């Protein structure tokens, strides 16, 4: 199965080189300070592949998604190079591509407009026959009832949330899907089921970038794993590397590996801050 995945990984959809993001903030009084959250991030996402970026919560990995889409907050500044399908990803291209070829799957329903019905929201208020058909197809594929389209986000039951959020990506023709922590609070079994939907998108030819803090999920579902620590990408591995400690390269990755329950938490505190 892993062979099939590798075969598909042919075109590089997204390539990021030395991405840096910093913020300017004011403190009480007249002081202002700048702090750098992302200090050097490199990664590649290929079509048909599921690439996971793994890092601790609050490490700034979500900024990656915002940077690619051109949606960083106004007090942020960034440097580094981003390429989409081999061409430089400029502000203008970002605006043209986002929500279209580049889609984001958010963490929770809080990212949906609370006052807009689900169906209209997924369709982005488009009303033509084609989009209606598409929505119906997606709903039947995800086993969602027709009535759901007429409900508001707060009315949805927990089980549907993920499928609804992924529908927002499915309704476009994405070539790059960025999933920002798409399985918060789910146990591994349910999370894997959600990831199957992303695998489907990859099988259709899209590149999927999974941003998560859950190493086990990444190992079980991704094709490649990029380790993000202290503002930098420090390691890149394939899931099979994680079968044993000595196939891993970087000390932090090894510490992560040891911190996994089945590997017995060994020496966790001693090694993680390398």
């Amino acid at each position, binding site marked *: 199965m892993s062979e099939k995945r590798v075969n598909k990984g042919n075109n590089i959809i997204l390539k990021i080189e030395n991405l840096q993001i910093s913020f300017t903030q004011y403190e009480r009084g007249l002081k202002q300070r700048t702090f750098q959250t992302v200090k050097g991030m490199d990664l590649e996402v290929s079509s048909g592949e599921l690439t996971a970026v793994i890092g601790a919560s609050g490490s700034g990995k979500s900024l990656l998604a915002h940077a690619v889409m051109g949606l960083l907050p106004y007090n942020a500044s960034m440097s580094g190079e981003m390429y989409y399908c081999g061409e430089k990803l400029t502000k203008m291209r970002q605006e043209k591509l986002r929500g279209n070829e580049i889609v984001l799957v958010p963490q929770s329903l*809080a990212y949906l407009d609370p006052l807009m019905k689900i169906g209209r929201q997924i369709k982005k208020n488009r009303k033509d026959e084609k989009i209606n058909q598409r929505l119906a197809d997606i709903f039947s594929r995800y086993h969602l009832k027709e009535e759901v389209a007429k409900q508001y986000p707060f009315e949805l039951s927990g089980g549907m949330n993920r499928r609804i959020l992924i529908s927002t990506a499915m309704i476009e023709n994405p070539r790059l899907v960025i999933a920002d922590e798409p399985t918060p609070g789910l146990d591994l079994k349910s999370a894997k089921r959600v990831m199957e939907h992303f695998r489907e998108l990859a099988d259709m030819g899209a590149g999927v970038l999974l941003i998560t803090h859950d190493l086990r999920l990444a190992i079980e579902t991704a094709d490649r794993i990029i380790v993000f620590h202290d503002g930098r990408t420090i390691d890149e591995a394939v899931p099979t590397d994680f079968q044993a400690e000595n196939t891993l390269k970087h000390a932090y990755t090894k510490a992560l590996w040891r911190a996994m329950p089945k590997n017995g938490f060994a020496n966790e505190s001693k090694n993680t801050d390398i």
Partner: protein
Amino acid sequence: MKNKTTGNRIAFIIRKLLRLALLLFVTSITSFVLMKASPIDPLQANVGQSALGTMSIEQIARLQAYWGVGGNPVKQYLGWAADFVRGDMGMSLLYHQAVSEVIAVRLQNSLVLMVTAWLLSGVLGLALGAAAGMNRGRWIDRGIKGYCLVISSTPAYWLAMLLLIVFGVWLKTFPVGLSVPIGVAAADVTFTERVQHFVLPALALSITGIAGIALHTREKMIEITESEYMLFARARGEKGWRLFWNHGFRNVLLPAITLQFASISEIFGGSVLVEQVFSYPGLGQAAVAAGLGSDMPLLMAVTIVSALFVFGGNMIADVLYGIVDPRIRKGGVGQ
């Protein structure tokens, strides 16, 4: 489930109505006590010291009884309240007319003015506030913010005076005062004349009303643009007018309408001042006259009527959320 929510809602409305009645009761006592406490002698204020000097003791006693001087205040209040509950607001001492008649005419005049200004300032304020909030930090936002700052620093009566100077005295587009021309019987006043005398006060009131709603809408709009759902909508490629229409307007409308209902008090306050400047025969002008002339029954009635509008507006604002917002309407949140 559905019955339960309906039951809750009815209980909620009954509680609100009880509170309203209690507030009106307290308001009537407040205005009664304040008027009674006044050291201003209504006889001196209305009849005049020199006229009083020429009167006999019986005449003065009659006048004192007329203006409600002396007597037991508790009894007076209870008598007034008993009449009021039965719909009898008493006689206006200044106008020698039933208070209900004075109020009916004045309220009608004022309502035309206030409703126009309320609608105009509401629509314009919403539009300006939304435009400013969507374009935060750009020149359009700065301009609108500046306008709001200046207007909310401008007393309504001075703005009215400026309009009077420019349009009434210099350009002579509109007449200087009074809602009907002097010396013309009310029935003979043409519609055009009425409109002419109405435009400037309505304009003054609308201009002052815009600032509050615009600033509030701007704040809400900024909150909305910073929300996660707005971020996601932008990530989905929505932008500009469509982004505003699909998500911004939808979410800002309810808070804006609610505020507009809750700000009836300010519009009323503004109308008192504007009516005074334009000698517009509305409720506000009657309130000022009643206050200056110690016309207790009239002032009490004006206070209660205006309080009724203000409380009513606040109540509508409260209830509106429950009816319009699907999250509350369908009982998803807060039940």
